[in-house]
């Protein structure tokens, strides 16, 4: 068993800042033009400096890469472009030495059609793997299940000429769904989990978990048997792998997602789940200059078990998903954020944070501040900490997966390979190109976005209240202000954000805290004490304040 460098702390993930990495795009350690585990090891000093607690790796397994690695053809090996299982284990060891944990994407719902399991299943319907996938003579079953990739897939069923039957797939037709009705499949996937856990991994982001089981007359999402299986996975983790975490990707409404965190008291399913509908509403609030959508979605967010946590993000490797908004809201978002149809993909917008916000520094800081102030653990997407751009002309989701921009030198300091050999060329445009936007220059510049993000992370980590505290919305007469209070033990934090592009004044009812003195948390400046009357604050355009409320020293 590898040494574990952490003090046992079962709730570490509630206070953690996560950082999502596309291995191919981070750093090329063997000069072949694509990122790999050797390269990741070299950049751990940077991640440690940035202050993140946990790396989330996009799929790293052997794969034909027809869906960014979410089409896995061997669960127990590393994609050769990224290195070997030994390289992976070494990366985990080095990360742990720096106090950084590592979780990785794992797709439980389906495999690549190139996976030997599927090849065996299609070749021999009476063989041992004959019913490891969902086969049918007709494509009439489960008609109430929606098609997720509406741009490319006409149906959830595809006909396999080899076996002469239809197979079920909730995503691309080259990603057949595993048949969880089969106990051998259930066991095989547990073995996969154990394999990586034994190598020291700190957990998994479970991709596409709502779709494990199917049942006629349902939409085939969030079925009770899916939860039952996930509870079994959790029990295995709790029994043999303490301190590891399961993060559910269930792109569903919070009321449905909460079920993935298990029993309201004991929290016996996944440790964490992503909060999908929050993110589009944050963008909507900033664009409309109205904080109402943020208040509303948080009101509609149910309580979660005490030992569970939301994963919150501004952007990630997928498109900005608009499945969890109404049709009107979706039209609005398209209109405002994806005027060019190339920016749209399925039900979403494929752009990075900086271009979505027109590269506005105040807007980027405001969005980070709101994200970091909310109850949940923030997940950053690689490159967004320096305000990297995207390339909407690249196919599928590659536009937001260009190489990390390390320096202003050749290949953005990402690789020593020839320019033409790079898996994707780094951005070169005058605004977001690597000569303008890179880690080296921003490290040197105290006022850079990177330095600001590092400061924000450090500040959040000083105050457990952000990860552990309660959330109390603080509504006012001014709809352009998003204000709330976080509270944990003696720590009381007041967060006030102005989503408008003009300066705003707001009167907040803080009478419950009368006598306390707000101390601004970045500059440690004391503001006038809170009295019985409404507390008046003025905020700069897109400005925000975080205050710690303290009792004055006697």
């Amino acid at each position, binding site marked *: 068993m590898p*040494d574990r*460098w952490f003090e046992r702390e079962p709730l570490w993930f509630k206070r953690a800042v996560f950082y999502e990495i596309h291995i191919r795009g981070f750093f090329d350690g063997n000069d072949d033009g694509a990122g790999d585990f050797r390269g990741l090891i070299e950049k751990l000093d940077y991640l440690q400096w940035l202050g993140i607690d946990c790396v989330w790796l996009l799929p790293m397994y052997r794969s034909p890469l027809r869906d960014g690695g979410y089409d896995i053809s061997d669960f127990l090996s590393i994609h050769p472009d990224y290195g070997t299982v030994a390289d992976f284990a070494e990366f985990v060891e080095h990360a742990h030495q720096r106090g950084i944990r590592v979780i990785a994407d794992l797709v439980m719902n389906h495999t690549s059609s190139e996976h030997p399991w599927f090849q065996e299943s299609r070749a021999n319907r009476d063989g041992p793997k004959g019913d490891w996938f969902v086969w049918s003579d007709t494509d009439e079953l489960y008609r109430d299940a929606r098609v997720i990739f509406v741009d490319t897939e006409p149906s959830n069923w595809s006909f396999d000429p080899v076996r002469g039957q239809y197979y079920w797939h909730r995503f691309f037709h080259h990603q057949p769904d595993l048949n969880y009705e089969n106990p051998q499949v259930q066991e095989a996937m547990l073995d996969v989990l154990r394999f990586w856990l034994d190598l020291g991994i700190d957990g998994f982001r479970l991709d596409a978990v709502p779709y494990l089981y199917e049942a006629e007359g349902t939409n085939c999402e969030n079925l009770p048997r899916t939860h039952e299986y996930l509870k079994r996975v959790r029990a295995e983790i709790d029994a043999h792998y303490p301190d590891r975490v399961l993060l559910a990707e269930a792109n569903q409404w919070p009321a449905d997602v909460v079920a993935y965190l298990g029993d309201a008291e004991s929290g016996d399913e996944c440790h964490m789940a992503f909060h999908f509908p929050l993110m589009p509403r944050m963008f909507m609030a900033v664009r409309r200059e109205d904080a109402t959508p943020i208040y509303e979605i948080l009101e509609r967010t149910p309580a979660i078990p005490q030992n569970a946590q939301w994963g919150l993000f501004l952007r990630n490797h997928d498109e900005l998903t608009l499945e969890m908004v109404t049709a009107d809201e979706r039209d609005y978002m398209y209109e405002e954020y994806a005027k060019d149809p190339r920016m749209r993909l399925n039900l979403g917008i494929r752009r990075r944070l900086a271009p979505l916000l027109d590269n506005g520094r105040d807007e980027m800081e405001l969005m980070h501040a709101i994200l970091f102030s909310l109850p949940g653990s923030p997940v950053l997407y690689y490159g967004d900490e320096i305000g990297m751009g995207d390339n909407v002309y690249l196919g599928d989701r590659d536009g937001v997966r260009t190489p990390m921009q390390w320096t202003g030198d050749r290949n953005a300091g990402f690789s020593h390979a020839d320019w033409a050999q790079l898996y994707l060329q780094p951005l070169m445009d005058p605004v977001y190109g690597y000569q303008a936007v890179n880690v080296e220059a921003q490290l*040197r510049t105290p006022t850079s976005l990177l330095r600001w993000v590092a400061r924000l992370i450090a500040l959040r980590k000083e105050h457990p209240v952000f990860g552990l505290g309660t959330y109390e919305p603080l509504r006012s007469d001014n709809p352009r202000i998003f204000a709330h209070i976080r509270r944990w033990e003696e720590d009381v934090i007041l967060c006030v954000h102005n989503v408008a592009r003009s300066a705003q004044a707001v009167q907040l009812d803080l009478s419950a805290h009368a006598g306390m003195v707000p101390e601004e948390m970045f500059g440690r400046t004391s503001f006038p004490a809170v009295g019985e009357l409404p507390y008046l604050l003025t905020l700069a355009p897109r400005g925000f304040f975080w205050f710690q409320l303290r009792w004055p020293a006697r």
Partner: protein
Amino acid sequence: MSFDEQALIEHVVRQRWYGAKSRGVAHAQVLDSVIVRADEPRLALALVEMRYETGAHDVYQLLYSLRGGELEVDDDVALARELVLTLRTGTTLYGVEGTVEFHAVPGFAGLGRDPAEVRWVGAEQSNTSVVLDDEAILKVFRRLEPGVNPELEMLRFLTEHGFANSPPLGGWYAYSGGLLVATLGILQTFVRGGLDGWELALDEIVASPDQFLERLRRLGEVTGEMHSVLASDPNDPAFSVETPSVETLGLLTATVDEEIERVFLELPDDDELAAIAGRGEEVREQLRLLTHGVPAGRVIRTHGDYHLGQTMWADGDWVILDFEGEPLRTFAERRRKRSPLRDVAGMLRSFAYAASAVSFLRGAEAPDGWETQARTQFLDGYFGTVDPSLLPPGAAAERLLAVFELEKAVYELRYELEHRPDWVSIPVAGIVRLIEQPAAAS
């Protein structure tokens, strides 16, 4: 062997080496134990897990004896003696979950006979030490961290590679099992009749400053030799010389810059601070100038917590002690390779402290310009001895050194403001010196 849980908690919590005094203990249990001596009085050691209310835990090494069936949890000298005798035999003892292996370094003089006089000496944060016949010292690690203890690793390497100015390693014992792999204790030569480097400085800066300057030149040479030896084995991955990643200096600069910003933001109004008050931007500007385009040199294993208090003068030469690194950092952090100039900066800052401490503690004054001379002597000795390929070329080495000194002085400023406001003038003077010397010409 079973312990009453409550008695166990009460015993461990009472110990000087128990580090979590403010935390609520929820459970305590013996993870594993081995019998060191089976004859009466029976002696044993146990690994005890203390589990806190927050769900976190620590593991401690507990030594105990059994007399006529009665349990005595005590730091008995007989036990220490027994541990040393067992070390000499190189035995492996078997517990339930793992083993305790004892290793002796061949030819270590202090192991040659039964120790007659055994005494416990001062306990530190997480370990206790026992001196045997004034010849050997056994350090018993109490709060255990997984992995190889960096002090053992360093002493072993220095002993095997012939560094003459550290006390040779005599042996060690370690636990190895599914729960934990950890160093439990190390035995090394006891430096007899040595004079503590810090005390010697305070005595001689006033009484015989020139003699001490001579000694500092020698300390520079010894430091240079130490770094050269630490960088001498390309085949040992834990010690081989490495080129730092391209961001190294950028990350260091950003870290120090943020630290400067923070400490100056909260600088109180105080006459002692007048010389630097309102000069935060100047300090940051100097940092920018110092780090602009400077190469980072190489990184190696270093002492890690290097100052006069870690040295001794004995038998006409310096002995370097305490290779454990900064105690508050994790093993992994302490084992990180760093620029050797970080050690050098630590020692130079220590001279500044000594020059002022003479007046704080002894009521005397250091001769004019003593600190400058001390720096010159030490650096002359150091640069003349150390393997130059470890450092950035030429004047760049002194610029990088100034960056580490600034890092250290800013840390000291914050520390003294919090803990010893009377001493704050020392880092203040250090910072003033660093911003007033031209960055490019140095």
